[in-house]
């Protein structure tokens, strides 16, 4: 905090003392919109600056006249009040001139908007689904899909988290994920955006893509990135408790790297399916279950299994987690019948992860059921339905 205050003073002094150096400071401090890395983002940036300078111009004029009168026509200086209070010519002028200015602004704005809306001829389609509070990416036609969760350690951001130093040293605090969405450069990528529960919005400033993810409807957006790189953004529509904790990370890579990545993902999926047949030991399941729990469940049920009273039930001592296995399976695989906040995880997690997290819940936080759930049990449970 002290360092923060020092920086404030540093900024103030640069603004005051060094005219040209201030420009660099402005850049470093991030006081303006990013130019971004796509044609659309730079068009929007130009549009933004254009309107900004027009407003500054009008402002200087209007406030100029005002400050002049406040200085020149003040009573203490002996000013006598005039008595004019009408002028059709003036009124006419200051109706027409702003209208013309507005029309001039509207022209480039309209052109840019048409460009943004043109999602035709995309070379790659990615379906993006917002969940409370993570994103799912589905490469249409590629058999590649995965969830992308915040990967900043909980200890760095939770209220009773202890890792304050880690937080202050983490350059991507709250803007990092376990699995970024990967796209090839120089290809027009279309995003099909929707949501599973509430409205979210998928936003990456450097791509200038922001589109609401509406449950039950699909919105389209597109981008074409020219520079390989990692671009970070956040969910931009209030979506509940962890709205501030569902970042977007886009990794733009060369075409060759992209092809290799897709291949790798495919192989991984095949491997995962094979694992479903395997029988795991308790410790193995419990350990993996803990990590799954922390990424997928702890947002609501809390890392200590205590839940949030009134909103999310505790797992510790929960009737479901310490009751018959079938109702536990059904709660996790199909979600709650009464409260949509408890999603159906059957389609979100692999059989292995499901088995692990259920095993974990039945044996952690003082729940001592002693049973193990195997991936094959999950598969059988799903088949029964």
């Amino acid at each position: 905090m002290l360092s923060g205050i020092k920086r404030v003073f540093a900024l103030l002094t640069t603004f005051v003392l060094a005219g040209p150096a201030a420009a660099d400071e402005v850049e470093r401090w991030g006081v303006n919109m990013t130019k971004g890395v796509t044609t659309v983002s730079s068009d929007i940036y130009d549009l933004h600056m254009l309107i900004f300078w027009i407003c500054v111009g009008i402002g200087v004029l209007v406030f100029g006249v005002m400050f002049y009168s406040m200085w020149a026509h003040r009573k203490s200086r002996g000013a006598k009040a005039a008595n004019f209070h009408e002028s059709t010519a003036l009124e006419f002028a200051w109706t027409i001139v702003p209208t013309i200015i507005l029309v001039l602004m509207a022209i480039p704005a309209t052109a840019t908007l048409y460009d943004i809306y043109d999602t035709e001829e995309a070379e790659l389609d990615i379906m993006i689904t917002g969940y409370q509070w993570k994103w799912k990416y589905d490469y249409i036609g590629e058999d590649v899909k995965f969830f992308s969760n915040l990967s900043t350690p909980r200890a760095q951001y939770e209220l009773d988290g202890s890792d304050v130093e880690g937080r202050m040293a983490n350059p991507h605090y709250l803007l990092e994920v376990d699995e970024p969405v990967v796209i090839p450069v120089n290809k027009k990528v279309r995003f099909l955006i929707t949501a599973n529960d509430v409205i979210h919005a998928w936003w990456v400033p450097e791509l200038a893509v922001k589109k609401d993810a509406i449950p039950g409807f699909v919105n389209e957006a597109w981008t074409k990135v020219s520079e390989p790189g990692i671009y970070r953004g956040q969910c931009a529509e209030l979506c509940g408790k962890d709205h501030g904790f569902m970042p977007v990370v886009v990794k733009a890579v060369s075409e060759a790297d992209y092809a290799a990545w897709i291949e790798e993902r495919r192989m991984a999926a095949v491997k995962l399916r094979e694992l479903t047949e395997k029988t795991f030991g308790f410790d193995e399941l419990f350990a993996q279950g803990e990590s799954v729990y922390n990424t997928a469940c702890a947002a609501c049920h809390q890392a200590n299994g205590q839940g949030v009273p009134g909103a999310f039930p505790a797992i510790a001592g929960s009737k479901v987690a310490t009751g018959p296995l079938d109702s536990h399976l059904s709660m996790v695989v199909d979600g709650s019948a009464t409260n949509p906040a408890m999603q159906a995880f059957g389609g979100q997690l692999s059989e292995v992860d499901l088995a692990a997290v259920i095993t974990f819940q039945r044996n952690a936080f003082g729940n001592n059921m002693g049973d193990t759930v195997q991936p094959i049990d999950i598969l059988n449970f799903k088949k029964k339905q």
Partner: protein
Amino acid sequence: MAHGPQPGFKRWLYTTNHKDIGTMYLWFSFAMFFLGGIMALVIRAELFQPGLQIVEPEFFNQMTTMHGLIMVFGAVMPAFVGLANWMVPMMIGAPDMALPRMNNWSFWILPFAFAMLVSTLFMEGGAPNFGWTFYAPLSTEYAPPSVTFFIFAVHIMGASSIMGAINIVATILNMRAPGMTLMKMPLFVWTWLITAYLLIAVMPVLAGVVTMMLMDIHFGTSFFSAAGGGDPVLFQHVFWFFGHPEVYIMILPAFGIVSAIIPTFARKPLFGYSSMVYATSSIAFLSFIVWAHHMFTVGMPIAGELFFMYATMLIAVPTGVKVFNWVTTMFRGSMTFETPMLFSIAFVILFTIGGFSGLMLAIAPADFQYHDTYFVVAHFHYVLVPGAIFSITAGVYYWLPKWTGNMYNETMGKVHFWLSFIGLNVTFFPMHFVGLAGMPRRIPDYALQFADFNLIASCGAFLFGASQLVFLFNILRTINGGKKATAEVWEDADGLEWTVPSPAPYHTFATPPVVK
């Protein structure tokens, strides 16, 4: 009829007097301003530095929601109604409001509504946590049980506003003194007449949308659920059809107040009276056809996007006319800078800055970058705090001598002004920067690059908040004594309210004055 107020608390419970009711509205709104302000301070304290320090995200969202709701429905709107109650009958030479008993009812249901709203903080599952715009389905399928109380509270607030508005319309249309033609009415009366129409037109729509929520939550309808053939975006259309005119409801009376104060202290008649009236009407009309500029990113068809962009941009024209008229009123006047004038001048400057950022938001493609960031938060606090709040403050200083019979302390007023002016800009100006740099709104914690400006903003908020204590103190002192005010109070002030003694007698204009 001629006697004064009854002693004791019954005076306030049973009163039918527009001045009593106005006073109650004003105190209520002041209390709500402090309550909403304290919630804002919780928000600012949490955002003081990165990391979660004092509140859980769940509670943070409740604070944001309640802050927005309380400020909009509890602080700004009742303050304007309070001023209307006090001033409109005096300005048009009427003995009271047209429907005095209903006037009392409109007021007293408000504290009930807000008691109910605030009580949700103590309910299981917590208070509403879905933002003051309460988008479905977060506010329907995913809401805490207290949402039902929120819905009924909104219903009562709506009823209060509609009754209040009907009363004002009836008063203005029916009770003007002989000779007070429409085009002779003070602009405050004009702006309130138009505001009242906006209220009557849109509050029922708000009632409609919360009713749809209630049905979706408890009675199985599918307004906002795609599975049944509805659409969550329908909620937003109906909400903003109310919501956009609502923001003008919070600014048109402000225009009226400032149009009364600037001529007084410039000692020169208001420039372009009739164009002010036409501009106000045009703003009100346009306000009905721009609502979807809050929804540029929901994926509207491009035709809709363009229509709402153009219509929104057009509002700059009549608003500009107003700004130019105020500036021209000052031009070649003979100005002094008492506290009401200071607040009014700050209003003109800072509201215009807020208007400029509004115009930037109106450019649909650019809004794709601005939307739901702190740039929007900066915009609307510039139009609301130095807009609505400053105009109310200016009005209170301007008319306080008329209400109490005493002059307020000018030095303290100036201290209040400068602390507020500085505090406010320190709070809200940096929000433009963090917004442009990419900080979303409604988040309890943020990435490190936003840290410095948030720290500055939080400091400013506490300064601004503390300076309001000066205001409170000044008001209390003025009520209890101080230099006696003359009937005219201000040199050369124009209007019927300055023809009656200060403090204004309990009943004014039992026989209507004749206006030439």
